[in-house]
């Protein structure tokens, strides 16, 4: 390692705040870039699955509707 110890690595000869804030903001931005499409992708798949389920439920209910009406009469 270029630095003698961890403290010097953090201080960076007085440039620590600049270097570390630049790297922290960059890493946060990169992590966000990766996570955003993954979260989006998952939400979309769930959404499509929910639509499908709703469609199936509606089909099932329309098929059984005549029975219900007969019973209620």
């Amino acid at each position, binding site marked *: 390692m270029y630095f003698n110890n961890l403290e010097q690595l953090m201080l960076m000869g*007085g440039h620590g705040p600049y270097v570390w804030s630049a*790297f922290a903001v960059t890493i946060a931005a990169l992590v966000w870039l990766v996570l955003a499409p993954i979260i989006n992708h998952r939400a979309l798949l769930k959404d499509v699955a929910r639509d499908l389920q709703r469609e199936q439920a509606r089909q099932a209910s329309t098929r059984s509707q005549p029975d219900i009406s007969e019973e209620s009469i």
Partner: protein
Amino acid sequence: MKVFSNWQWFHRLGSPRWFYQTTGRWLPWLSVATLLVLIIGLVWGLAYAPADAKQGNSFRIIYIHVPASFLALAGYYIMAIAGAVGLIWRMKLSFMVMKAAAPIGAVLTFIALFTGAVWGKPTWGTYWVWDARITSMLILLFLYAGVMSLQYAYHSVDAASKAGAILALVGTVNIPIIYKSVDWWYTLHQPATIKLTSAPSMHPDMFQPLLVMILGFYLFYALVLILNTRSEILRRERKTGWVRELAQSKSGFDARAGD
């Protein structure tokens, strides 16, 4: 018949479903490679590279500033070319890639500007100057933002894609200006350290980690572009059979159990 078979690869390339399935197989490898290269580059650049004789340790910011700037520019080409291909061949997948590239480019341009400002304070004594390079990079950020906002400005997906592509193509005028700004207007930003035509004006001990970081950022760009494009494919093809099947097989368990 022969002509048809020759063009088959082109049609397959334009098929969102094919793109989705093929890139799905690459993703695990690409993610691992990206993470490894970036971690090696970060540790090397932050802790092992020697400090600069004049700038001290603040120079380490170039390990993110330079790769982010590179990709901000390269990403603009990718976005503009994808837009052009979409306009010329009416390839929908190409427009999806264009839309996917815009936010990545915007974030990378922001990183380039932010890290440049933070580096400028201890080195130049100021966070910001209206230097030619910095101003043209700010214009790049606005161009990316313009393409992004056009995607949501129209009801019709087709009209939004075409408007975005035209703005992206017009904006390419800015790219050579950014490259040449440091030579044309010799103000504050230093000329390029890395040139294809000559050896880098940098010690190998400092240069090698920079190369690793540039490679890491290229891998990262490819990864995020693929991820964004896949999301966009799902959004636009959500009514198709293959997406429905995929959704059911992926969350078949959840769908049965109900919310």
